């Protein structure tokens, strides 16, 4: 199971990275970034996964006996944080993108360079 998680998360990461690398539209880049973030979150959770594990929540006396079956709680805590960071990044970047659209009348990342006359 864990391999599957890791493989899928790595593929998500690669898809996201490819998007970030090749897209010109800022919104598409941000979407790609979000895909990457999803991938990394999945990856972190997969790192803490235990085969046939249970949730790390104590519900009764038995669950204290089953501590070894529980999945690792720390990656989940990290993921909780990284989700929020992802949210923040997305929100801020989108606001910047809106401002960018407002300033340049375009969402292409080449918009800024075209008016400065960069040619390389």
């Amino acid at each position, binding site marked *: 199971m864990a391999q599957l998680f890791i493989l899928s998360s790595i593929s998500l990461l690669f898809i996201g*990275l490819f998007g970030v*690398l090749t897209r010109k539209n800022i919104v598409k880049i941000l979407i790609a970034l979000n895909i990457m973030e999803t991938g990394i979150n999945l990856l972190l959770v997969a790192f803490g996964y235990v085969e046939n594990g249970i949730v790390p929540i104590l519900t009764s006396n038995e669950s204290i006996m089953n501590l070894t079956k529980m999945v690792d709680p720390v990656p989940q805590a990290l993921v909780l944080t990284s989700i929020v960071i992802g949210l923040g990044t997305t929100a801020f970047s989108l606001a910047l993108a809106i401002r960018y659209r407002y300033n340049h009348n375009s969402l292409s990342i080449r918009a800024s*360079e075209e008016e400065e006359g*960069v040619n390389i």
Partner: protein
Amino acid sequence: MVEIFIIPLVTAFLLAIFIRNKKVVWPLFLISNLYILLKLWTLFGKWEIEKTIYTNYELFGAKLSFTLSNNPLGWYFAFFSAVITLVISVFSLGFNQKTKENVAPIWMLIIFSNLGIFFAADWITFFMMWELMGWTSFFAITNGRDKALNEAKYYLVLSLLGASSMLIGIILLGALTGSFEIFASAYGLVQVFYSEKALSIAAIMLLLFAFFIKSAIFPFYMWPSKVYAVGPEDYITFMSSVMIKYGIYPIAMFIVPVVGSLDLPKILNTANWIQYFVGYLGAISAVLGTILAIFQTDMKKLFAYSSVANMGYILLGFASMNIVGFEGALFHAVNHMVLKAAIFLTLAAVIFRTGESEMHKLGGLVYRMPITFLTFLLGIIAAAGIPPLNGFGSKWMIIQALMSQKMIIFAIAMIFASTGAFMYLFRALASIFLGQLPDRFKDIKEVPLTMLIPMIIMMIGMLLIGVVPGVVMKPLTTALRAVGYNVNIASWTSLEGALKNSTIDLTLVFLIFLGGFVISAIMYILGNKSETVPQEDNYTGGEYPEEWGVNADRFNYSYSFYQPFKEMFEPLLEKISIDEFFASIGRNFEYMSATVQGLFRRGEGAVLLFSIGVLLLILGGWII
């Protein structure tokens, strides 16, 4: 010892504060220089004086310390440079009445580094002073004027490159010999030379590179012509006479003893390859400097190339690795100081009065500025190395040494250069002072007294050293003896050659010349009286054809003075255009700069480059 370093610093600070007040600045500058000279006078013979500052700063496991010591050779250079500086500072008093900018504080810093270079006992101190001199010169050359910027930049680049190479050289030296002290590292280098041959040679070459840059030796011969053409004239005088010797001093101090004590295989039984390397560069500088000087139209550029040629002579003297050549080179260093200072002072005086430095626009100034003319005349006679004046003795010694070492090509180069020197020197004389006086300079006067006095002093100096070489040779031999060379001077007036029966008595030469002069004067007096007529009377029939648009100003015939000669050398010079090479480097850098700026202006590509960085890291980590 310490006060001659503190005084310039304090003065520089004071000068910077009073920079706007010319009435304070230049006298203060003069007084400070006078003090330094007097102090240096008292230091003669006290070779044991030393001052060390210890630090906790560790380099290669040893704590650094900075030592200044009154070493004899350094004293020799420092003293004569102080004399010249004093004379120039008297000149500056009058010269700077009109100028807007003020170079004095920076100049004082350079004087500080000047003393530091000559008195440094370890490489780190030497390097610090060397670098100080580099960047301060930049500001002194530009002196706040935009037209001087490009030339000053050129100088700065060379100077920083030299300092960089010197830094690596010093580090190599320190690591090889375990000491940064100049003498200790020289001994150490001789010890380790055979076991660490490649590194030792690299260290010597790197140091030489720096010294050659400062002394405008062949591949770097361009900067004097560029810099002297634009710098403030009084400062340029200092630069051309004193600062260009900075490369000479360490060569005499370090390279010559080290190479001299090495037992390297000789080529054709004459000299080892380092000698030939140094000598060829010197010979090329001498010849190339001469040829280029012949073609200049700007008088400051002309004498800049003349300096290059003279540096070539000095280097040839070192290359001979012969005690006479060595002495001759050191003697020539001081001679060149004196005569170049004299010449540049007259040029400064001319520019002061006319504001013109293109020679073909001048002419006939002898009728308005006779003392300046006389100084210039003596200066060029000295520069040409003609006997009764001071350039001769040292040149003669160098040629003697080269001949005794059978370095035939160098000797021929030297003769070529000094014969060529007649060409350019006479050209300068004829174009600036002789010929016709242009109409617009009809009303100019001789320069004021403050500027005349230094010139007269320089005249006396040149004649004195020329007739009584002991004035310089005595201190030089004393200094060299103190360092450990077995040299002596027979009398105040004679010079010892390297060949058999070749002692010459310069006073006698002077007297013989005087005899010849008397004979000649008798013949002159015997002749009938002569009548003075205006110049134009003879060949123009007394009038200018105005309707052809020709007037006295347009009648000056010294623009392409050596046109046939130039045509002979043009193809050769085009082929070895070092200037073009440097310029193309500069253009390439500018192109690269635009590319990099474009890269950073782009909107996209940031993440791409990031990924490429990751890729490189991966590839780096992969190749285990």
